[in-house]
């Protein structure tokens, strides 16, 4: 890759334009040098696609939470890009326990302590966690 071939395709989502990565490219005289790149179309697209996929799944889960089919825990887990294994690890629970907490009825009866722990993992307040998706 020559210096003038270093891609400068703007990464215009999720503050992506804040970072100009350094890449190595070949100068006219054949020597390698570091050049800043605003982004690369192929990577931007792959990254955007990954985020779109996350957001689609998240919207789906949000709907289920609002319908009362899932507890808010499922929503915030996905919002924080976690899966059940990772959330269980953070919470110090078994995976089947976390899965059980996805049931709205079980979630409502959880100890304040456990709910507080979950809220802490997601960096939100207990109120935000338990009221999410409930009918006002």
């Amino acid at each position, binding site marked *: *890759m020559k210096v003038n071939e*270093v*891609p400068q395709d703007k*990464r215009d*989502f*999720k*503050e*992506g*334009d*804040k*970072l*100009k*990565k*350094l*890449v*190595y*490219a*070949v100068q006219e005289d*054949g*020597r*390698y040098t*570091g050049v*800043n*790149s605003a982004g*690369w*179309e*192929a*990577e931007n*697209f*792959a*990254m955007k*696609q*990954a*985020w779109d*996929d996350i957001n689609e799944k998240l919207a789906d889960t949000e709907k289920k939470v609002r319908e009362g089919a899932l507890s808010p825990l499922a929503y915030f887990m996905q919002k924080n*890009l*976690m899966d059940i294994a*990772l959330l269980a*690890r*953070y919470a110090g629970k078994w995976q089947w326990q976390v899965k059980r907490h996805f049931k709205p009825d079980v979630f409502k009866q959880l100890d304040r302590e456990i709910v507080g722990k979950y809220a802490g993992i997601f960096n939100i307040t207990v109120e935000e966690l338990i009221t999410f998706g409930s009918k006002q």
Partner: protein
Amino acid sequence: MNDKVFTHYQHAHCESGVTANLLRHEGVSISEPMAFGIGAGLFFGHLPMLKVNGAPGTTYRIWPGAIFKRVCERLDIKIHAQRFRDQGEAMLALDNVLATGKPVGILGSVFYLPYLPEAFRFHFNAHNLVAYGKENGEYLISDPIMETATRIAPEDLVKCRFAKGVPEPRGFMYYVTGVPDKPDFAKAIQQGIKQMCFFMFPPLPWFGNSAIFLLANRIQAYPQKLTPRKAALYLGNVIRMQEEIGTGGGGFRYLFAAFLQEAGQLLQRDDLLHYSEELTIIGDEWRNFAYSAARIMKVRTSDVVSYDELSELLRRCGAHERDLFRKMQQIKW
């Protein structure tokens, strides 16, 4: 007590960047490509059974932690490295070293680094950065992928250092304790190249050169085995790993080519300069592959012909690399 001010340099890759920045601070003149090459950072791996963020794991470089360790071993640099069970203990140990004026390498998760654009913040637990001081309750941070030095609040740094998942950094931190007067670069370069070539030809299908062909076969089968959506996500993951922060799309091939060039100049060896040029061309081929993959992703096609062509591009990268690394194995030192 060390009063020298820490200087931040931006680099392409986190681990080789941290290695270069830490060693430069200690007076060892080393570039990022040199650190990457001596650490034998170049690699390939494809693990269909290991799912990372829902897609099969693919890597273009050696596992995290190897580069720093190997560079220090090969240049006879003394280091101290430590993991912790307790968060408070880990932060206290960091503060104590920072108080002596020594910059400290830190391993952690990018998810908990607020200074990074959100687009990059996934649960990736093997990011390297340097803490080089504390001011007004905040840590001074030199993250090699950033253009400038930055800061982070202690509560964020704790989360970053004690992220859970695979792998778990457990507060891992490392710093240089001693450097030799004249590090032997010639020997280190030789060891780096030899090891890189050796690791490219293991007797396992998931690692090294043969894994490129494994991936090619898998990709060829995507249209039959996966929904167009899933196939696009899998391809996207391959591209993202190939461009894993600052390789310019060449999957670290340009970085290693830059190393070969620098090594060739330092040791006055034309063969290394020549191999550098060859590897640059291979890097361009990788980039072409990623371009073509992105095109297929965009249309979400299950057109068998385009997947056939794509896997053929990949096999060509693999074949050219095999030839080059086999030749490099025969280098007479």
